[in-house]
């Protein structure tokens, strides 16, 4: 068997059996060369094949990722969910910060967990040519013991939230018009007090337990949302 085929099969099996998490980051092409002791061309051929198989995606300047199950298009096609009218294929995720912190009374109340249980609090930005989205995500550690922040770079939030210990069943979306605070105005490059849309997504499982919360904020005058219903 040719070298690149061996490499291809090895990577494919690691992806299929979950050793490389969906949406997770893979060693870079340079690192793969070293690990497998093969040439750059061999690595490139194997990766090209995996990309063609839709098992891997290449993100220029960021790295190689295992392809997530869901694409933004899948989500866009779901009825009953509010979604941005022109989803951008070309976007970049910038992680601003991530903390593992105590739930404290407010989130303890919202998630129905104890005050001192731990929670991932992630703050990030989704930037495309046409719009900027400020996002926050709260994930109780208990439900997401293996949370890998890199998956946020390529994986739709719905899939990230569904990759924890519990399966997502329902989504409650809260939609508000608010005024930009000083911090938000700075990040979105708009005037303080400008209108923003704030969408709060609460994901819950079959026991009606909220398992994750996502907040999205963007310039209200620049974006349009659509929802289908029947």
């Amino acid at each position: 068997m040719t070298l690149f085929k061996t490499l291809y099969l090895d990577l494919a099996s690691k992806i299929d059996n979950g050793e490389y998490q969906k949406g997770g980051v893979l060693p870079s092409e340079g690192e793969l060369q070293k690990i497998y002791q093969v040439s750059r061309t061999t690595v490139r051929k194997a990766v090209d094949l995996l990309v063609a198989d839709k098992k891997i995606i290449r993100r220029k300047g960021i790295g190689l990722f295992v392809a997530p199950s869901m694409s933004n298009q899948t989500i866009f096609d779901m009825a009953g969910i509010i979604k941005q009218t022109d989803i951008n294929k070309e976007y970049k995720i910038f992680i601003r910060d991530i903390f593992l912190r105590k739930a404290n009374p407010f989130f303890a109340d919202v998630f129905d967990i104890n005050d001192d249980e731990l929670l991932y609090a992630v703050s990030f930005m989704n930037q495309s040519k046409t719009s900027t989205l400020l996002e926050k995500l709260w994930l109780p550690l208990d439900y997401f013991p293996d949370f890998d922040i890199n998956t946020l770079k390529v994986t739709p939030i719905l899939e990230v939230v569904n990759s924890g210990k519990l399966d997502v069943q329902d989504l409650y979306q809260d939609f508000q018009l608010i005024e930009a605070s000083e911090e938000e105005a700075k990040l979105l490059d708009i005037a303080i007090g400008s209108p923003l849309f704030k969408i709060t997504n609460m994901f819950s499982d079959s026991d009606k337990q909220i398992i994750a919360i996502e907040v999205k904020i963007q310039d209200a005058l620049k974006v349009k949302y659509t929802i289908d219903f029947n």
Partner: protein
Amino acid sequence: MVEEYIRLLIKNGEDGQGLPSQRDIAEKLEVSRTTVKSALLHLQNEGQITSQSRRGIQINKKKDVNLLSMSSLSDELAGENITIEHMDSRLVSVPKNLRDFFGDSLKNIAEIKRIRYRNGVPFSYEITNIDENKFSDITQVNLTNKSLYRVLKESYNTVPVYGFENISATLATDEIRMHLDVAEKTPLYIVESFNFAKSDQPVEHTVQYLSGENFKYHFMAKDILGYQKEANDDIV
């Protein structure tokens, strides 16, 4: 942390309820008043609290509307002293952006303008377009305090079965702000809905302008990944 403390007070409180003073909150949480002030400002930007000099800080619970339903806004707010003022109904030429929806052959369309009030305060200004060929004399119907959907059902035996909505925002223009009695450039929701009856028949198109200060919307999607689970069950 201060913000979360106040959010919890808001969550458990009622509309119009006063919050503890800045000083009391600062003392209780052992933080500076500046910190408390900053948190309050952020929550005010979100419309969660209002600050009036004499009354102090009050919780503002925005009216929460479930838009994922075929009921009109009037059904949603039933029993809340909602009145509908029917301003005008007339025939106009079909706007360019609606030619696809209503069909190319249509030349003129009925345009119905209404304002909804809650306790005498205007909160929604809406413009509905509907085909008078299909719904004859609809421009003659008096829609004061009447749900259009009820009229469609009872007088025309038509019930919309599906549709979609676009939600965006704008700053109040002169005409709209006059109807909604808001300051110039107040941010408003624009909810544009397209509704269809069976066999893809277009029923009506409505553009609705709503105050952001008073409303928030929610959508509940159940069993969103149901189709995936079914697919996986087959693969065993």
